[in-house]
């Protein structure tokens, strides 16, 4: 989800008033992006940033899923090189700055939640049936 949020932010100049298709290989992130909601403080905060960017750049996005093997973004996410990814198009330094911004927003949201005294479930939301 953070990768999608970051891509939207870093490439906002391209996405402005355009139709774009966002591909990812994670099902839960895919459905959360379609819904426009994220459960929990972290996911909720990242989703808000994502929505805010969408509003700011006036874009209409279509979300689609693809298998990991076909996802070219798998390569840069592991810090590997690929001939398709030419150095002149590298936006990593911009992306690193935007990650710092996301970090700050998430930390702020967590602190706010702590101040309110709300408890976030850290364990899976499924309870096992007693034997």
């Amino acid at each position, binding site marked *: 989800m953070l990768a*999608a949020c970051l891509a939207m932010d870093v490439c906002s100049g391209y996405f402005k008033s355009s139709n774009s298709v966002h591909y990812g290989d994670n099902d839960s992130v895919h459905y959360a992006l379609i819904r426009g909601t994220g459960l929990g403080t972290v996911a909720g905060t990242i989703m808000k940033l994502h*929505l805010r960017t969408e509003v700011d750049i006036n874009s*209409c*996005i279509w979300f689609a899923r693809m298998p990991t093997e076909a996802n070219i973004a798998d390569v*840069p996410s592991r810090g590997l090189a690929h001939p398709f990814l030419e150095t002149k198009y590298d936006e*990593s330094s911009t*992306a690193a700055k935007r990650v710092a911004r996301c970090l700050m927003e998430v930390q702020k949201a967590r602190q706010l939640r702590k101040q309110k005294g709300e408890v976030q479930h850290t364990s899976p939301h499924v309870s096992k049936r007693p034997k």
Partner: protein
Amino acid sequence: MRCFGCCIQLSQILLWNTGDQEYGDALADLVRQLGDVVKKRSLNRQDALRLRGRLGFADAFLHGRLGALVLKRLVDHAYGSTAAVDDDLAGILEMMILRLQTAGPKTVNSQAVREWFAFTDAAYDKESQDGGLGAVLVSSNGDCAAWFSVQLDKSMCDVFGASDKEIINYL
């Protein structure tokens, strides 16, 4: 031609009057109404359904996910048990106000078919507890337009919940 939330631009001919008083008044009225809800933090069923009706133009095609989300959340709220507006709904309404005030109407022109394909992925190594984010932007011609690779250390992953959950989808 200009209607609520939508501009149709044919060739270079401007068919609307940018100082359209009726459009401006209706927009200002809607923004005020949304602002009141956010301020009062209360919305009864009748008003919620009425507001949903006024926002009927905000379908997914014109306003992306936000339009669809606003409509869904208003209907959920209308048939909910309380009139109190929660933080989530208030946040979405605030974004809708921003959208109406700043983003301007959607423009339908020859550039409407311009498409971008964004591929995104994240990686996380359980052993070293660090991760990475990657994205590639591809044009409709199939050319790479931009890409990034960001590595996240353990402290950063922890902020995003790596230590809380077995699988962190936030990345």
